[in-house]
């Protein structure tokens, strides 16, 4: 069974990002970038399936800039077998990525495609779903547990207020939620070994596609800064303010 995993290069969630002075976007020039954390979970799951003898090959694919090869190398160091970069300098919107991934899936013929449930930069939460629609495959989003048995995959999904168990027939699409697993570190020996693994670079045009930016960002704003706290003189005043200002007491 071949597994395809999609990974995106995003700003490290541990760093504070700033807006460009003109508000047109984020200033990422000096920001540390990393693999989207939900994609790390997807890669980990694929590698575990391979280690368990269920998957035969794990292919990682990224649609993004040259530097996304680094993200792919990380996935290779975690245990994926080979990488594919579909290079673009454009902002990667979910629909464009879904189109590329569906073309890649056409060539690679994976039994299972794993993605993160969303990318932590644009928080779209759409790529997996759009890809399922384009391919006409069954999908399970927000997976917190996954078991493959023959041509069936059983997934426990995180849904509002609980969990839902569904069974899909392969080929299928699963998007990873936080609790699916705890991804491993790319270890130093494996980073060196990953260097020797194949990593192919393509253009969208190789698949007869054009990566379009269909959304226009009108403006970005920092969240409002929190107003300073105040000191109250008495418990009575505290209760009063919690009622009238904070609205947390009736």
């Amino acid at each position: 069974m071949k597994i395809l995993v999609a990974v995106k290069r995003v700003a490290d969630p541990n760093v504070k990002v700033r807006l460009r002075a003109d508000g047109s976007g984020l200033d990422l020039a000096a920001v540390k970038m990393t693999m989207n954390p939900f994609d790390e979970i997807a890669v980990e799951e694929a590698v575990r399936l391979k280690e368990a003898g269920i998957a035969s090959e794990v292919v990682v694919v990224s649609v993004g800039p040259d530097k996304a090869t680094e993200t792919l190398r990380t996935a290779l160091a975690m245990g994926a077998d080979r990488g594919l970069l579909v290079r673009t300098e454009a902002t990667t919107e979910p629909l464009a990525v879904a189109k590329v991934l569906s073309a890649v899936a056409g060539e690679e013929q994976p039994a299972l495609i794993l993605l993160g449930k969303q990318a932590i930069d644009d928080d779209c939460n759409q790529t997996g779903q759009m890809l399922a629609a384009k391919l006409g495959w069954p999908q399970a989003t927000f997976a917190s547990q996954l078991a493959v048995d023959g041509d069936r995959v059983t997934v426990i999904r995180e849904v509002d207020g609980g969990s839902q168990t569904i069974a899909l027939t392969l080929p299928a699409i699963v998007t990873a939620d936080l609790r699916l697993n705890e991804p491993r570190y790319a270890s130093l020996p494996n980073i060196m070994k990953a260097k020797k693994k194949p990593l192919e670079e393509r253009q969208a045009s190789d698949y007869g596609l054009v990566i379009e930016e269909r959304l226009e960002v009108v403006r970005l704003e920092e969240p409002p800064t929190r107003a300073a706290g105040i000191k109250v003189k008495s418990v009575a005043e505290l209760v009063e303010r919690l009622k009238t200002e904070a609205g947390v007491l009736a």
Partner: protein
Amino acid sequence: MIHADDGSLSQEQRLMRDSCRAFVDDAVTPFIRSNWQREWDMSPGERLPRSILEGAETIGVRTLGVPEAYGGVDLERETEVRTFALISEEIARGDSGLADKLVQNWKVSILLREFAPKHLQDKWFPRLLADPQFLLAHCLTEPRGASDRWLPYNVPEAAMHTKAVLKDGHWVINGRKQFISNGFDASLYVVYANTDSSVGMLQGTSSFLVPRDTPGLTVTKCNETMGCRFMNNGELVFEDCRVPADHLLVQNTALGSAGQYFRAGKIIQAAKNLGVGVACFERTADYVQNYVQGGRILIKHQAVALRLADMATRIEAVRALIERASRAVDEGHPDMDVLCNMAKVYASEEIMKVATHALELHGGNGAMLEFGIEKLFRDAAIFLHMDATVDVSRMKIIKTMFPATAGKYAGPEN
């Protein structure tokens, strides 16, 4: 916070640094933060808990320097020392003592891969790989002083007191070693001893491989140190300690041959102290942007801002010199010895100043165990004397630059 990414690092180097950073943030820093106060109460066995070394194992950071054939990390040799420096800095940013524990393994592994006979590499490297608690140590220093090892007075008077004699197919070692990093809990030691008392130490010192369980080797104590307390520094006594003849690594010229160890070692150690400086800066930058005095956060007081700028500048200057020195070692540049000693001495004194600023900017909190700033200060302070004192390092620089004048030994004390 300060992240050198000038494009000179390879992709692999950046990924390695990121893995180390993630491990430190996830596992090391939380442990250190919840144990500031306990550092002084823990027994050597608790320093550090097994889980931290096992965690270090998951990123494969304990066995750098071990050849790939034995399952070690196959670093690019052309940039190996630079890579060591990067990783050492990242680990020490979490804890300088942990870095010391680990880097000692890298340094000694380099010696083993260069000088140990193949059958002994076949024996020991797999054991090192198999056990996350397996540590290595390098034993030069003796009660009668270590500066002579760094600045060798090539006269019989300066020779090592520890002696080894070949008898019936075994080397018999007698003497003491002190201040040895990992000395208390290492499984395998490289030991230097005098093997020819008729010549100077450069011609008469040999090195040996001594397994911990060799009869005649006693680990006599764990030193309680001012800093790097999570590395167990120890003292050893050798009493008719017999190792097979093939455990000789380098005969008579061991100190010269150890250049492999010393050069990489100085860079690794300097980078370790840089990591302490980065931790000082990150903690302080955070503190002064949150703590209020005089009605505003500290960083808005210009005197505070100026100190913070000074910290950042010194850190970057140390980093630049370490980069230059490590490149020199990787390239085998003729100035590499001078640069290594410069990097070591500069990293020790500049980071001490950085730590002093951190202490100052934390006010009274800086002096309290529960804030962990005094720990960074102690970790920086102990480094002044590791791998040669400040003054001896400086003399070494000048002796190497001017061998015909400064390098000439004036003669023994009468």
